[in-house]
């Protein structure tokens, strides 16, 4: 790490911080993926987690995933809340026996030294109603701040995980703010440079936060979104039906494209929810509809080659 130029050090730059995590997990044998090219609420939605967590095959991956939470937008006025932020996601299947140690070493790699920081594993049972998934694990605390989620997946998309995968999710902005010692996310040093060369998180994202907040809360086209939800839902089902080889429920050939539509439906639902056009009772039924899609995709996936059918 000493060989790193200053502007790449994790405690100086946001990008250096991300690169340090990627390098660490690459060292552990993970494939380093790039973000999935669709809007999603969390890194867990990435097929590299949701689908790859299913089936018997080994799978170790790490990636950054931009996460969209339309409801969390604050027009750029809140120091921590964002409608678009980054998650760093690690998935290891089967969960290795030393996963907790690996996690602590990864913190050391981004400048969090466990001899001066108080790191804790605090109970947190994770559940995603839209994904039909649950697991047990912890929120990881550093000096009283929640910095990661640590979950042993027990079930995903309605399918039992066998073997169990371990999932780590780091809230990148929050961690980087702590490491850099800034109180406002927009003040994060993005590129690690000083003076005129310095680019902050605000330079990159502030305008986007303002624009998307306006869009998400005031202007998004609900009529179109309602239609999009139905279209994505129907397409997902259609692709799932068409994907069974020779119409037999033995092998599936289109789980991934179908799952894309499930991701789409989920994000559209989040947009509608942020717009306040879904009532409390309807809300539950939309979540159920997305879950049904996720479950059907999981069922299809375990009949594909990567899902372990062959």
């Amino acid at each position, binding site marked *: 790490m000493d060989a790193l130029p200053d502007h790449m050090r994790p405690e100086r730059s946001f990008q250096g911080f991300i690169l340090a995590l990627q390098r660490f997990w690459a060292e552990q044998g993970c494939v380093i993926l790039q973000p999935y090219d669709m809007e999603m609420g969390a890194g867990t939605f990435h097929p590299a987690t949701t689908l790859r967590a299913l089936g018997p095959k080994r799978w170790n991956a790490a990636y950054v995933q931009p996460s969209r939470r339309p409801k969390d937008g604050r027009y750029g006025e809140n120091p921590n809340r964002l409608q678009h932020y980054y998650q760093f996601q690690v998935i290891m299947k089967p969960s290795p026996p030393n996963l907790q140690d690996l996690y602590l070493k990864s913190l050391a790699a981004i400048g969090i030294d466990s*001899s*001066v920081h*108080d790191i804790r594993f*605090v109970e947190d049972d994770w559940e995603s109603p839209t994904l039909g998934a649950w697991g*047990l*694990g912890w929120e990881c605390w550093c000096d*009283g701040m929640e910095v990661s989620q640590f979950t042993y997946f027990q079930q995903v998309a309605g399918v039992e995980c*066998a*073997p169990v995968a*371990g999932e780590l999710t780091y809230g990148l902005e929050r961690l980087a703010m702590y490491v850099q010692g800034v109180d406002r996310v927009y003040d994060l040093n993005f590129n690690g440079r000083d003076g005129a060369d310095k680019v902050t998180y605000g330079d990159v994202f502030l305008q986007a936060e303002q624009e998307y907040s306006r869009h998400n809360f005031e202007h998004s086209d609900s009529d179109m979104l309602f239609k999009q939800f139905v279209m994505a839902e129907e397409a997902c089902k259609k692709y799932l039906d068409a994907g069974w080889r020779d119409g037999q429920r033995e092998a599936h050939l289109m789980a991934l494209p179908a799952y894309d539509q499930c991701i789409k439906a989920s994000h559209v639902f989040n947009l509608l929810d942020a717009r306040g056009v879904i009532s409390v009772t309807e809300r539950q039924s939309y979540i159920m509809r997305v879950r049904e899609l996720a479950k059907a995709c999981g069922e299809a996936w375990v009949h594909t080659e990567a899902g372990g059918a062959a």
Partner: protein
Amino acid sequence: MPDLLLELFSEEIPARMQAKAADDLRRLVTDKLVAEGLVYEGAKAFATPRRLALTVHGIPARQPDLKTERKGPKIGAPDAAVQGFLKATGLKSLDEATIQKDPKGDFYVALIEKSGRDAIDVLAEILPVIVRTFPWPKSMRWGERSARSGALTWVRPLHSIIATFGPETEEPDVVKFSIDGIEAGQTTFGHRFMAPAAISVRRFEDYEAKLKAAKVVLDPQARKDIILEDAKELAFAQSFELVEDQVLADEVAGLVEWPVALMGSFEAEYLSIPDEVIRATIRNNQKCFVVRDPKTGKLTNKFILTANIEATDGGKTIIGGNERVIRARLSDAKFFYETDLKTKLEARLPKFEQIVFHEKLGTQAARIKRIERLAAEIAPLVGADVGKATRAAHLAKADLLTEVVGEFPELQGLMGKYYALAQGEDGSVAAASEEHYKPQGPADRVPTDPVSVAVALADKIDTLVGFWAIDEKPTGSKDPYALRRAALGVIRLIVENTLRLPILHVAKSAIDGLRETGTKQALIDSDKLPADLLAFFADRLKVQLREQGARHDLVDAVFSLGGQDDLLLVVRRVEALGKFLDTDDGKNLLAGTKRASNILSIEEKKDKRTFDGAPDAGLYKVPEEKALATAIDQVKREAAAAVQKEDFATAMSAMAKLRPAVDAFFDKVKVNDDEPKVRENRLKLLNEIRAATRAVADFSKIEG
């Protein structure tokens, strides 16, 4: 005798599960030992975030030998029966069996001697079963083996097991077993950060000491004591005072193996937020203690956190980090509080029209209307101003829609009070926001301000009547709407404030309210409902009196008089009755009345008729009859007059006068006279005794 040391070392166990898990481990192991004939001397279990540990001392080294007799077939039984007998008992031939004489035919008996096994072998058999079937509230699979069926499940991944067994003076043996690839041994690990190396242990004393040297305090109580003592000292050093919080201390003790208390501070400007909000913020979210200034009783801008390490920088970084988080949290709380203050409570009410209270009971808005109506009706009965009670009921639920209560539901009511005061409401009206939820349980305070009392009663009675009307009564252990608590609340509000409240009448009015607010539900048995509900109150009252050590049969004796819907009077009657029955007069009168009742019920059955009606004075043959009739007349009059004045003690003393006459009657008079008319007259007289005592209670319901 040998001792057992067992440790199950895992990844972090949720704090809230640790105490029960330790207890379960001790119970399961010791129960099994006893069932195996291994009676031990003592056992103690411990839990830390990463381990469950158990020591059982004084276990016999071997099970006792067991001798059992087993009855076999008759002499000369068919060969198949004999062979089956030999096989089942392990005898080589019938020569090894004895013969027992029996009049119905002699038969074979096998004497089986089973020699006891070594305790360590028994342990090796029972411990894996206990681990595999451990009652965690939720358990999980992990790792490579989770793909196989029958994989071990545990609360979080289990890493190692210590199981040693042996006498104090010798090197103990390892209890040999393995579960899903984890071999029991004698190795554990110290503190995750400060002493992570493997440690080899022999027995409990050296286990506990070595752990301590490796920065692990095994005993949760010891960790809790350290936390509280250090926290108090830190506060005291600055002339402040720790706000003690046992529940929080227990939780924090379950989050650390090596507690280190540290003090941090936050900006004094946040002290403008109500203390309760600051405390909820710091406690619920950050698991930290708050500190007060003993001079003012108010919180100071300090907090105390418990770290799990002795940091090499003395805790500077840890304090700094926690301060950042707490600052951000308090900043949110302050924003919520100030935002809330900008909206008047009544301006929030329209939103309740969108919020369903219960699918069959309409919206929250409808419910608030009903409570208002009922509170106005109850107000004059409890000495409250009708206007204030109505206003209080109008606003009492409004804080449910505030930001602070959304964040901290446990502050409901309290925030309503603050916001009501801030918008200039009357003090009693504001207080009712908080107090109308009370009493929450048997230990909670009962409000005394009449406005609070009126709203509290209206709230609870509306709830009870509503759920009764849609047939959602509590059954067995199921009481999802806490209706038992609500009924007990009504009882305590009435009795402790000595209120006169005609429950049946108020319940009927609540039903009208339910109809007016347009619930579309067909109300179930609305005619029977008030009486039904009254019976529920009677049950609750019995439970409560029983818990206070009073006799619950007396409650039945009073309620079975009928028409008793004034709970305060019921309680007073029960009290007076209880005192009376403690006296000799009371006991004898009870005995006499019961005797009269018993004779009557036998004769009534025999004659298939009752003996109602006044006895004929002309048929009295002996002075004792006349004396009893006179006494009954007098007692009836006096008791009735006293009951009229609600003076139950005097009514009871009047009853006491009946006793000598009753005693003398039974002494001297034969009820079943040969002359039928005289017999009938005497039975009528007995019936009069029963009738007279009913002025205060139905004596037949009293036990003993």
